[in-house]
């Protein structure tokens, strides 16, 4: 049998070969893989984080719990990380603007934001976010005054980070549900802000 040349093989075929052997050996089941794929398609995504942010905006006690212990606070919604990872939520203010990156791999708060978009995993974002955060934010359309510290959170351990964006002005009359609708994924990564419609 010819040794597989992985670089030239269709990854779809390699994946099928890998899954079939692992299933055969009882190290995985296709049923479990189906469940995981489905859960990220249907249940786990940035709408979770948006619910958490909206609640923090309207409920100061919840916000306090969220900032002290993110993992416990999101568990109140039934959201948990598949690996039990710690979740740290950092609040954006006029003084400090937080943004999240993972320079070593692509760590991302799956439990509240789902799977990361391709740009978050790109070499350009991973390399540049720490050394030129203001330039990166500008590319995302966000210009911040020099009086605001731009603080980059490099997720180098198993702790996951989510940003609590500033509640935009003019949203006083909005319900929690309506507020959740204006929280964007980018604002929870910290490359954008929530905007009043």
């Amino acid at each position: 049998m010819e040794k597989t040349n992985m670089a030239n093989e269709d990854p779809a075929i390699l994946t099928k070969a890998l899954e079939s052997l692992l299933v055969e050996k009882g190290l995985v089941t296709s049923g479990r893989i189906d469940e995981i794929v489905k859960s990220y398609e249907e249940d786990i995504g940035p709408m979770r984080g948006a619910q958490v942010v909206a609640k923090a905006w309207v409920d100061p006690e919840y916000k306090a719990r969220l900032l002290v212990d993110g993992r416990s606070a999101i568990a109140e919604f039934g959201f948990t990380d598949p690996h039990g990872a710690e979740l740290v939520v950092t609040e954006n203010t006029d003084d400090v603007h937080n943004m999240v990156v993972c320079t070593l791999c692509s760590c991302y708060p799956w439990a509240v934001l789902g799977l990361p978009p391709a740009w978050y995993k790109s070499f350009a974002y991973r390399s540049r976010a720490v050394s030129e955060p203001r330039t990166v934010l500008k590319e995302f359309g966000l210009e911040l005054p020099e009086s605001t510290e731009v603080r980059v959170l490099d997720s180098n351990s198993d702790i996951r980070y989510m940003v609590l964006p500033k509640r935009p002005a003019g949203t006083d009359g909005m319900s929690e549900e309506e507020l959740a609708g204006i929280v964007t994924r980018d604002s929870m990564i910290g490359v954008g802000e929530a905007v009043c419609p």
Partner: protein
Amino acid sequence: MDGVHDMGGMHGFGPIERDELSYHDEWEARVHGISNAMAAPGGGRFSLESLDPAEYLGSSYYTRWLLARINTLLAAGTITQQEFDAAVAKYRANPDSEFPSDDETAYKEAQEAVRERRKKAGDPTFPPGSGSGSSERSLEAKLGVGDQVVAKTIHPDGHTRLPRYVRGRAGEVIRIYRPQGFQDDEPLSDHSGPQPMYAVRFDGKELWGDQAEANSSVVLDMWESYLT
């Protein structure tokens, strides 16, 4: 290891292309599912970093996951080269070839074995949700908020979570986290014992000198043994 994966501050990757997709093909979702469901060690971060540098830079995100996983499973003997080659040939000849059926009993046993191994290794995040347990709280943090620290200068050839750009740089402890399992030099991704963990803020100027952007900083998670 000082590999190409350690990208913080590197130049030359150009502007950020705003590709919003998480997956570009169906097999990528399968690879993600396999990686999360698989009850066998291998394919973790160290295997990703151990890919040939040109291969790492030349492959898509999920291709790297796929190759790293196959490489480690082959190296560990969990899958033999021969059976892998045979499976590839089979699905290349006919992608709709017969697929083995799930063995729930064997899978449960394999998951139990993984749990046991991680428990033995002292992984504080296992089982999931146990990270706030009382035993690890007793691990006393030697440093306090406001303490000035310096990240160690190290160049291990094994796995480390201490990025190059911060080694030897001075920062300040801004928060103390719950202890976290130490991960360095753990090729099979089992955690060794937990250590106190700190959020350390490094000023942009300390990291990037005159090239630093105005009023910028980076916060990293620092296991206690990373700091002096």
